[in-house]
């Protein structure tokens, strides 16, 4: 039997909650950004040992900057710690953010289905917000991202 278990968290990042109707994204979310912010948070809250023990399985698997969705993997033992650390992240590169968990699953497959659904719904919302300025490029990128989700492996 598989002794080692992981937890896959699907989160959305809410940028700049205080600003009103930010038309332009203050910060672009990338894998690197998110990883750094979360690692810093773990370090501050759980210390060196906490960071070291959770770093083994910790990985940001997928980030979509248009819909601001990310998938993060953590080991089952530490996933609650990592989740708390993520909740306590206040900013990414000087832009205040809120991480909100959408789905937590034990397998990558379940996570993929949930993430696909959330991504599509969020993209619809994004289209509403952006309105007519929606570019074909964005749609293309979305397609690329959706494919990326489908290709995720653990």
């Amino acid at each position, binding site marked *: 039997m598989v002794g080692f278990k992981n937890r896959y968290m699907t989160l959305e990042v809410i940028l700049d*909650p205080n600003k009103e109707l930010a038309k332009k994204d203050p910060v672009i979310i990338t894998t690197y950004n998110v990883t750094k912010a979360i690692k810093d948070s773990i370090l501050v809250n759980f210390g060196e040992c906490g960071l070291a023990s959770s770093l083994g399985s910790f990985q940001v698997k997928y980030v979509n900057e248009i819909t601001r969705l990310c998938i993060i993997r953590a080991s089952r033992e530490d996933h*609650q710690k990592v989740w708390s650390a993520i909740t306590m992240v206040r900013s990414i590169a000087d832009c205040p953010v809120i991480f909100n968990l959408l789905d937590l699953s034990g397998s990558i497959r379940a996570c993929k289905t949930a993430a696909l659904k959330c991504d599509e719904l969020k993209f*619809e919302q994004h289209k509403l917000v952006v309105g007519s300025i929606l570019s074909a490029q964005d749609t293309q990128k979305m397609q690329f991202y959706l494919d990326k989700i489908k290709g995720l492996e653990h």
Partner: protein
Amino acid sequence: MGFFDLSVPYTDLPPPDRSTRAKLVTKALQLGYSGVAYNRTIKGVMSDRDRCSIPLLTLPSLLKHSPHLTSSVGFHRDLLGVPRSTPFRQYTRLTVCAETPAQAQTLNSGNPILKTYDLVAVKPMNQSAFDQACEKLEVDIIAIDFSEKLPFRLKQPLVKAAIERKVYFEITYAGLIADVQTRRQIITNAKLLVDWTRGRNIIISSAAPTANEFRGPYDVANLMSLLDLSMERAKAAISRNCRTLISNAVRKKHYYKEAIRVEVLPSGQESDGNKPSSSDSFNWDPISSGEGDLLLDDLAKAFSNSSTKATKTVKAIDFASVIDSMPSLGFQVNDLISGTNVVVSQPLATQKNIVSAPQLNVQSVATDGVQEQSVLCDTMLEWQRFRSKNPQKLYSSSDTTKAVNNVIPIEDPLITTRAEPNSPDETDGIATDIHDVQSQKSAIANAVNDVMEIEVPTTTGAEPMNSAESMGITKEIHDVQSLKSVTAKTFKDAMEIEAPTTTGAETKNPDGIDGVTTEILNVRSQKSMTNCKLNVVPSQVNLTYHALDIGLSVACNPESGVQVPTNYQDSDIPGRHNEEADSIKNNDIQSDLVDEVLTGKEKNFLPLDSALDKSISEVDELTEPGDDVVVLANQVPVLDSSDEMTATDDYSVANHETAEVIMDEQEHGKADIELSYPALVQSESGKSKAKRKKPHQVTFLPLKRLLHATPFKKARKSKRRHKMA
């Protein structure tokens, strides 16, 4: 189960700060919260200036901050399992900093200033104030500032006394997120509290100064794991505990001695229309003076006692938008909307008023029940959704307590829903019926019998209003009537009424809807909660098994042995457990939901019921069995949308057999739930009045059954053995 954040700071500062609050509330809405409470802190002596003057936010102001609120709200609510149509509620809260015992003395129930707020909290600053707060003061919440070194000790006996008095301790999480030093202090101090309270009676709120420190409900629950609070308790702390708190507080505020609802009636006919806003009878737990949003449209209504007109217009808009935004449930919404016009409600209200005029109690109850179109709408829609989509989702997260709470509020709306003449939609009728049933049950548990009885006349008054078209309405009336009559006489009358109604319903609509209506009637008629529950539960389970056929058969076969109904009563109770398992197996969402609701109700009402049952059984043998039968009958038809009469014949036969078996099994302590249910259904539809045997047995056995919950399979086998034997 909705999530609440009971501490959104409010200050009297000039307008620039108001936008912060609006942003916060927008964020809360978006993250899926169902309600917030604006918290105002005062120190020192309370004066008349401190009366509640917190303006509630309206939907337009929130939309200003985020124009696409509805879509994101809907998205998050779906993820959290909160029904989309849950209104967003706004409450007002006052936190009094108590330093000296003299200041603390002002916090009693006689203080008029406190009455203007929905929730009252005390913030003790020293040991003596804390002692008083735990033991004597009549507050809802004890809020301790954990970000500083605690000026007093949390002693175990004091904390225990506070928990017994149903006072909740509050932990705020904004400090955890904001600052590192604060974080340290909070964790150290709050951990003490969690240790002493063992995680009970705790509510979590944000006290967030800006929208940056706001977090989603599940994230907050996880943060509490840092304080050694288990995930389950943490989730309860942001949902169930808050809801209990709010319902208690609102009840204290609006009800005199927990029975009579006091409302300020605006002058003129508009008052009726306004009543729904203030008397959210359907959902009178979290009634906020500023009602929340409706469905996806999230039209927040800022109600005040004076703005009747605004309420009306808002309501109208809500319904229209509801229709637009809810395509899948569109027909229901339309029905609701057409039926739930303010104008419509008014005649109902007047009717009710007229009927209940002579009795103060009745009036109060009636007014509650009369209105709340929005509530009605919501409940109906929720119910519809429920039935059409994933009822499990809606209910799976709810505890029995929640169910109980829901039941209680539903009671009133049921009455109202019935009264409404415009519920053309069958499903609506069913939904209302179901709601009614539920509410009825809760009503029974909570309301005084007298009140219930009074309601009966009210419903009869409403009867003439309802046209033949709306079966649900007529059924409601019957149900109300039946439920209310505690005495045997009333029961008989109810039974009689029900019988013809059911038959009449059957003839009209072979559809399952008829069954539904009959169910409701039956449910109502049951005097005791347990009876109702039993009946409901079995019927649901039965539905899963013999959905279509049974429903019709029940409706069509009024003559079922009296014995069967009685048996069912007994078997219902034990069967309930099995049924629940079965229903789950069958993925019958509806039954699950109902079961859950019922179970919750049952658990709460069982002690009451047993007592009631004993008395009732002695007095009215006839009534009890009839109710059960009726209930069962109703249950079955609900599921069947396309019942056919032919199938019923087969079932009736089976039912009779099963009924007999059931009786045998009862004695052995095992009830074949499956079999019993179809039998029950049939028997119910029949003349329940005719023969009632073993009423006494019925009352005692059910409890026993509960104690010895047998697995489904075993029961089956035993049943067969009995049959063979």
